[in-house]
Structures are given as C-alpha cells and as structure tokens.
C-alpha cells in the first residue's frame, strides 16, 4: 500500500487496530487525545470496543479486566496520566497480563506543560509502581517505526504476558508524515491464553487472574519467575540502530525525536569533517547494553542527548561501565533543540577531550 499522511496519534490508533487490538480504555489528555478520538470513530467497524473511562485509574483497571478476559487491549495517555496508572501497571505485570500502553510524553513534573518531552524515561523504564517488575518499553523515532512497533507490541505483550509501553514524545503524536500501515512485522508463535477468565463452560476448572501471594515464599518464587522472564526479554528484545559509527570519534546516544534531531546534527558535523556516530535505542527497556560492546575503537566519548534533564543517562553510565567519558546535553519542559545546539555540544565535548 502507498504511504498515507497521517497524524501521529491517529496512525498509532490505526496501527493498534491493525495489530489486532480489540478494546481500548482511556481518558482524554493532551497531546494524545486524537488517538482515542480516532478509535471512537473507527473501533466498532473492526469489531472492537472503545470506551472512555472516568479516569486513568479506571482505564488501566479496565485494561486489566479485559486483558484478563483474553482480549488484546490498549490504553493511551500522557505523562501525569501514566503516573496515575502506575498501581494498575504493577498489577498487570504482577498478574502477568498482556497489555499495550501508549505514553505520548509531555513536560513535567506535576501538571507541567503540554509540549513534547522525554522526561518520563524513568517513570517508563524503572516502573513507577511497587515491586520487582519491568515493562517492555519502545521509543520509536518516526511514524513508520511507531506504527510497526505498535503492531508488534500486541504480539510481544501476549508472548511475554507483560505490559508493553510505547513511549513517544508529543511531537510524534502531533506530527504528520507519510506512513505505510501495512508493512509486515515479525509475528511470534503465541501460546494459547488458557489462563484467561472467559467462563469455564464446563470444559475446564476455574482459573483466576491474580497478583496476590500471601505466603512470602510463594511471592518470592513468583518474583524470581518474573525475574527470569525479564532476563529473557533482556536477551531477546534489545533493539537499537547505529548510524554513522564507522570511525566515529564520539557516539551520541539519543532516542525518539531527539535522535532525529541528532541525525540532522550528524550531517552538519559530517560536512565539517567531524565524524560522530549515533546509537539510537529503540527499546529503552531492555536498554540496548549489547550495543555498547560494538562501539569501534575510534570512539573517545559518549554524548547523551535527551529531552529531559538527564534520565537515560543512568542507563548509559551503567552500560558504559566506566570506559568512556560521558557528557550530557538536554532540553526539557517542551523545548526542542535545533540541530545546531547539538553540533555545539559535540564540539564542546570534543574540545574538552583534547
């Protein structure tokens, strides 16, 4: 199919439908409201359910219920709304239910603002909820990648029986660019949902969906089992892209919209004869630690660029493990830098390294 021009939020909604999503529960919030609005118009045509919940808290618990009953289910929100969902997300992870959650990030903390931001990195990758759990988290950089990963996300959620979060900034939600909704994405072999509460119909014993383990030994066993699952995700689901790494003297680590701006900056730098590479994490949990082992020897330092005051920085430090010097460049609160600012940060760092 030809590429169509779609607004990010609407493309995400359509991608979810194409990914087999059969139910959406959410609560309006800028800058993602076009997503539920699109589904309000279209979901029923695909035999799916659209319901506006009374709050984000209700929405995530509706997701829990619907997922527990075997449906492919989506919710979407933006930063403060995601904060409200944290207990629910922890429950979904604890009960090992699949679910896809889209976070169109805006500036914080608190009410903050409504302009694009990546200041939810920790909220997304560290779990704002209680207990030992993680969500698979992807941070695509353009609509095509966003659409593809959303379609895949429903499979991934089912495969691991775990929430999958798509974390994009408001810019990706609000922009339009050409996108092909029908690109094939990898399919996984999925087990049957024999754990889903759909009624016994006399065919099996009752099942239950649950995150409670009153006996601490049971809960520990459960947690260690989850930990094994997270290990497997770490092994299999790291996703990233290298750009211009050959002979790079510096590597920029950046994701989402920031990565696109870095791409522009790399071109400017190239024209000036400065060779800088980009490591673009696509999965932010698991963070692509493997990539750090693949840096060429020419690399003399790492510049982390984020639309925040520095949150992914922790992961970069952990993966770098003391090897290279690390600098940080960030804009936040909805400010989006121009490529020239990154060029300057690169030059400053290279200057400092000499």
């Amino acid at each position: 199919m030809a590429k169509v021009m779609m607004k990010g939020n609407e493309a995400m909604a359509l991608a979810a439908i194409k990914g087999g999503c059969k139910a959406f529960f959410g609560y309006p919030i800028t800058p993602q409201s076009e997503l539920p609005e699109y589904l309000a118009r279209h979901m029923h045509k695909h035999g799916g359910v659209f319901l506006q919940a009374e709050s984000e808290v209700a929405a995530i618990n509706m997701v829990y219920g619907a997922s527990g009953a075997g449906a492919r289910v989506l919710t979407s929100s933006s930063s403060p709304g995601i904060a409200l969902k944290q207990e629910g997300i922890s429950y979904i992870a604890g009960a090992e239910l699949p679910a896809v959650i889209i976070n169109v990030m805006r500036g914080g903390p608190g009410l903050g603002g409504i302009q694009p931001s990546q200041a939810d990195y920790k909220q997304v990758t560290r779990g704002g909820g209680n207990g030992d759990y993680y969500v698979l988290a992807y941070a695509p950089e353009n609509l095509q990648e966003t659409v593809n990963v959303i379609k895949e996300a429903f499979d991934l959620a089912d495969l691991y029986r775990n929430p999958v979060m798509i974390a994009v900034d408001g810019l990706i939600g609000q922009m339009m660019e050409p996108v092909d909704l029908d690109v094939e994405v990898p399919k996984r072999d999925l087990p049957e949902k024999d754990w889903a509460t759909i009624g016994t119909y006399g065919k099996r014993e009752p099942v239950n969906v649950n995150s409670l383990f009153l006996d601490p030994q049971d809960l520990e066993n459960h947690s260690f089992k989850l930990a094994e699952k997270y290990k497997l995700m770490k092994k299999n689901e790291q996703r990233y892209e290298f750009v211009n790494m050959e002979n790079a003297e510096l590597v920029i680590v950046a994701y989402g919209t920031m990565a696109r701006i870095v791409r522009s900056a790399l071109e400017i730098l190239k024209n000036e004869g400065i060779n800088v590479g980009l490591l673009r994490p696509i999965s932010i949990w698991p963070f692509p630690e493997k990539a750090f082992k693949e840096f060429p020897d020419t690399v003399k330092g790492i510049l982390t660029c984020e639309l925040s005051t520095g949150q992914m920085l922790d992961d970069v430090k952990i993966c770098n493990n003391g090897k290279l010097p690390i600098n940080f460049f960030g804009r936040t609160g909805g400010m989006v830098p121009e490529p020239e600012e990154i060029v300057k940060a690169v030059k400053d760092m290279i200057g400092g390294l000499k």
Partner: protein
Amino acid sequence: MGNVVFKRSNGLSKKEFSYCPGCTHGIIHRLVAEVIEELGVLDKTIGISPVGCSVMNYEFFNCDMQQAAHGRAPAVATGIKRVRPDNIVFSYQGDGDLASIGTAEIVHAAHRSENITVIFVNNAIYGMTGGQMAPTTLIGQKTTTSPYGRDEKHAGKPIKMSEMLATIPGATYIERVSVHDPLHVRKAKKAVKKAFQTQIEGKGFSLVEFISSCPVNWGKTPQDALNWVKDNMIPYYPLGNFRSPEEDDKND
C-alpha cells in the same frame, strides 16, 4: 435416607473460608454462589475479588475469577463485560473498597449502566486492615482510626451508598438487605437473584448492599454482632429496594 433440603452449593469450591468465626461474609458468599448455580450460569460467570477480607474469594467461588486492585473492581468488571458481553460478571466489594477508595469506579459503572452485578458488603469497618473507620462507620462507633468514636463534626455522617447510587439514571436495580437472621437471609437471596436476573436480561447495572458484621473488629461475639446489625445498623441503613427495573420499564 431423606430428601436433602440444604447442602453446600456447587457454586462454592471445596476450600474452607478464611473468615473469622461468625463473619457474615460466609453467608453472603453462599447466597451468591447458590444464585449463580440456580440460574444455571455458573459456567459462564466471571467474578471479581476486591481487596478486603474477601480478597481471596477467588479461591471460594467455583467459577473464573479476577482479583482486582483496591476499589477498582467495577472498572475491572467493565473491562471484562465489554469484551465478553455474553458472560455473567459480578464484583464482590467491601465498604472500604466500594464506598471509599472505589467511589468513582462504582458511581461510573452505575452511570454507564454497565450490565454487571455488584455485591456490596457493608460492615461499617475496614476488616482486613484491622478495624479502621470506613465511610459507613456509624456515629459514635469506635474504630482504630476513630478511637474516641466517629465524630460527625470531624468525619461527617455515614454515607448511604444505595441511596446515593439510586439517583443515578443508569442504576437499574439497587436493594439493601441484611443477613442477621434466617428470614432476612432468605430475603437477601431473592435480591441477589433479582440482581443477576437483571443482568441476564441485559437491563444494566445491579447492586445488592448487604449489611454485614465484623465480630472481630467490632469486638463482639458473632451473635452480638448480628444484634448490633439489627439494633444499630439497620435503623440507619434501612433495608429495601431503591431502584428496580420494573420502575424503569414504566418510565420508558
């Protein structure tokens, strides 16, 4: 051998209840289980356990169950029912769960007239966490967080959920019952049956409020607790029907 006129319903699992001796949660479980079985819908019922003393009732009901976050059972029920409209869905919630932290969820399930059944167990206290004040705690009642007795000036008058929910257009069937003696137990069962029938007929939101006891946290013997239900709870929380589908049918 005689005719068995009463035996444990197949709607209940074999597992023993974890409740304190004389706790009426057990009676209420039995009624719900019997109704589901008698209506022939046990095999397509999905129940929702709250957070409260009945948190583990997913082990007691002999049907598919989901354990919900504290107060969110109506949202969980909504999620289930919307994707499985042909299943029978009920939630079972305490007064802390439903009338305090879960107020928004129950109001909006009623507001949307979700076609679900809610079993609301009002024992005027937080049983599971050790006897704190609930929104339904009576004036003067001593609890661990109203150690000098609930004071209206400080904490307001106890909230009457059935009355409040009955004002919501989507609340199709609302009734308050008690299980303090065999007569009332039998009446209560009728209400539960009617609630599930309302759902089976697709008529929307139904809720049965049980006045229940918590002998342990009330510091009373089981029987005294029932007497207290009769003498103190019911006068404040009058039993009866607050909304019924017939009434709505008339209005249509």
